[in-house]
């Protein structure tokens, strides 16, 4: 497994209520409290339908990738549908916000990051 810091991708599922509001809000809250960089998208399904080229950008490189979205089977084939299949080398971890607690998701997303704790209060 790569020692590179993980890329994080968060899906808001903005076009439907498939992901519980409380879970997706809490996960986003934890990401925003942390000091890390992360990518967030309105809706992976919509990007897949449009075959959005940014999905390929997300997969580019050798870093581990953590995706907070929905069922891994759905996410796998959504990327495939977009023409950018997920690599099967074990560097992609899909976390399911539909049936997992927000804390468990956020802990997994932030695991091993160097800026895990709440940070970034404004400079006076």
């Amino acid at each position, binding site marked *: 497994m790569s020692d590179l810091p993980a890329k994080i991708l968060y899906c808001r599922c903005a076009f*439907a209520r498939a992901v519980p509001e409380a879970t997706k809000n809490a996960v986003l809250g934890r990401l925003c409290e942390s000091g890390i*960089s992360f*990518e967030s998208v309105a809706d992976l*399904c*919509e990007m897949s339908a449009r075959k959005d080229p*940014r999905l390929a950008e997300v997969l580019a490189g050798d870093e581990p990738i953590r995706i907070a979205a929905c069922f891994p*089977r759905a996410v796998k*084939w959504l990327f495939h549908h977009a023409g950018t299949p997920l690599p099967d080398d074990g560097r992609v971890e899909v976390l399911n916000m539909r049936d997992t607690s927000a804390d468990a998701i956020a802990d997994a997303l932030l695991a091993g*990051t160097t800026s895990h704790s709440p940070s970034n209060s404004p400079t006076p």
Partner: protein
Amino acid sequence: MKNEIHPVQVILYEGGGSTPWEVDCRLSVTASLLDQGYSVLRVTEAAGNGAAMRTTRGIPVIVLGRFTGPMPEVVDGAGELRIATRDTASLGAEEILSLVTTVREDLGADLNRPGQTGAWKPWFPVIDYDRCTNCMQCLSFCLFDVYGVDEDKRIQVQNNDNCKTNCPACSRVCPEVAIMFPKYASGPINGELVKQEDLARESMKIDISSLLGGDIYSSLKNRSEKAKSRFSKERSPDKALDERKRCLTQLQQSGMIPAEVLAELDLSSLPSPEAIQRKAKELAALREAQV
């Protein structure tokens, strides 16, 4: 497909030469932008997603930051990106959201906005090729040309936009539980792992052949041919529509198409008798090629 619409990428820049945002403001702005259809990349100097800002050709970019010095000029040497940079040092969350709207309009960028009238809800079938056996049941079943085949005669989803929102009917006719609608409420259609009991349930599905005496297109073809001879002297578009409506009602009564989906269908948008006959011929040729 709404190919002409691209989500605008907003970059919350909190790296060198800027001060970080308050957590509440960052969360509020990020959540609101996502709910409006934007994508948001937060860039810090810490690990994760790289301090380097990744952008994608053709997608408009708005860079927001609380810059401590002169506002950096962000340019795209290749001239392929529309980039706007704005200093948000004195702005609250609401003002930032207004600013983003204004800048997006200035960039001439459009959004597919969730919840807005006219927005396209991303509802379309996603095929699990680990399960699909290329039986073509879905292609036979769908009246709206959502499915097609690639150059290797492999089934694929070709026309996402043709899919009728909230209709999961094709996934219900798939004998291998290989068709997902990720926004569907329950499994395995929503992408949950397929369990043994799901397979058992699927094996009890109504066989389309028994439902309509053949595949949908053959059935509709027969119906349209009968209708053609019946109305040959006084062909009426209304009668043709009635014919299609009867066929769809039969499907709805079988439980395959939700009543609310059927109620919203624009029957005049259904395939014409000629299109149905052409499709039936194409399917027959495909099946012959598979034998």
